[in-house]
């Protein structure tokens, strides 16, 4: 039995991290898809410039979020969950953290290999991580795209799992990440 002081919900800070990063990831997919459809040109350059700025924002938030998470563990999963479910949840959440770093880092490396330095909203420029090399760029670009497919699939699983917890299991797994919502008497 958890003690009365054990958290049952994600804290406000954890929720802010979760929802801001979620919104940024949706933005990133949208910008990337829009850019993919365009030929080389100023418009594509502009979309990708925003994509890079948001990507570096996600990387900075991911660092802060990971640090914060290390000192503020997530509330425990519902007791009724099977052990395999808890393991799968742990794996998927860890995979999210890995991708939160891997996506922007492969993007940053990709830009470096292309010799297109990454600016952060025109305010400052991030240093190139590696030298210009077209082969490395092609490899990193492919990696960035495969990882984005993985992230997309993981996000779908994540959303479906949250809905399944809410409507099927009727536990508090979804609600405890929702702001402005009082915890209900759920398992």
């Amino acid at each position, binding site marked *: 039995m958890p003690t009365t002081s054990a958290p049952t919900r994600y804290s406000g800070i954890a929720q802010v991290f979760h929802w801001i990063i979620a919104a940024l990831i949706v933005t990133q997919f949208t910008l990337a898809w829009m850019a993919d459809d365009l030929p*080389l*040109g*100023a*418009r594509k*350059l*502009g979309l*990708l*410039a925003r994509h*890079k*700025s948001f990507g570096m924002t996600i990387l900075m938030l991911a660092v802060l979020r990971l640090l914060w998470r290390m000192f503020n563990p997530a509330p425990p999963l519902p007791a009724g969950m099977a052990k395999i479910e808890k393991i799968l949840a742990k794996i998927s959440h860890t995979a999210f953290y890995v991708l939160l770093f891997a996506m922007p880092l492969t993007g940053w490396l990709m830009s470096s290999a*292309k*010799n*297109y*330095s*990454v*600016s*952060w*909203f*025109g*305010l400052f*420029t991030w240093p190139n991580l590696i030298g*210009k090399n*077209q082969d490395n760029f092609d490899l990193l670009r492919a990696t960035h795209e495969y990882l984005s497919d993985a992230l997309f699939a993981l996000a779908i699983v994540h959303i479906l799992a949250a809905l399944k917890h809410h409507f099927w299991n009727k536990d508090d797994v979804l609600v405890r990440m929702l702001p402005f919502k009082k915890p209900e008497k759920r398992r």
Partner: protein
Amino acid sequence: MRPCSMILFAAAAVSAANLWAAPVQAAPMQAAPMQAAPVAYNADPQTSKLEFVGVQAGAEFKGVFHKFTAAVDFAPDALAASRLDVQIDMNSVDSMDKDRDTTIHGSDVFDVAHFPTAHYVTKSITKTASGYSAVGSLTLHGVTKDVPIDFQFAALGSGAKLDGTAKLKRLDFGVGQGDWKSTEWVADPVKVSFSLVLKPKT
């Protein structure tokens, strides 16, 4: 009449005194600026550099021109007759990315098919506190406009080194048509730098 005579007499006396005191030094001091002629150099194509830095999507990028010729007539004491004359092969531009190079060569940017060369020639050179500055006319993308440059000159043995910078606005020369006219993703100002290794003309 008397004050005039006095002045003439005084002037004659001073001239005489000068001739008497230092006839050898006096003559070259007056003749030197007339006699000094600039040394004629060519920039060594292997070691000389011509580069530019633009701003793309908020981040700087560098480009180089691999092929250009620079004829320099220069002597610090003969600035009036000194000049720089640079011919740039626009096809040799290299921004270290093939996609960007394709765009830069293309009709919306340098349009090298129609404007294969650029030309810069100085009109006047003046001494500054830290080196020299010059105003010259740059013909780029078919447009001719004055562009000032700042440079340092250092004689090295029989040759010399001439390093300098310039700032120009690409849109003054129509470099950037269509979507590239916007300065939202490619800034208007471009920094140019050059480092010429000069060898005397033979």
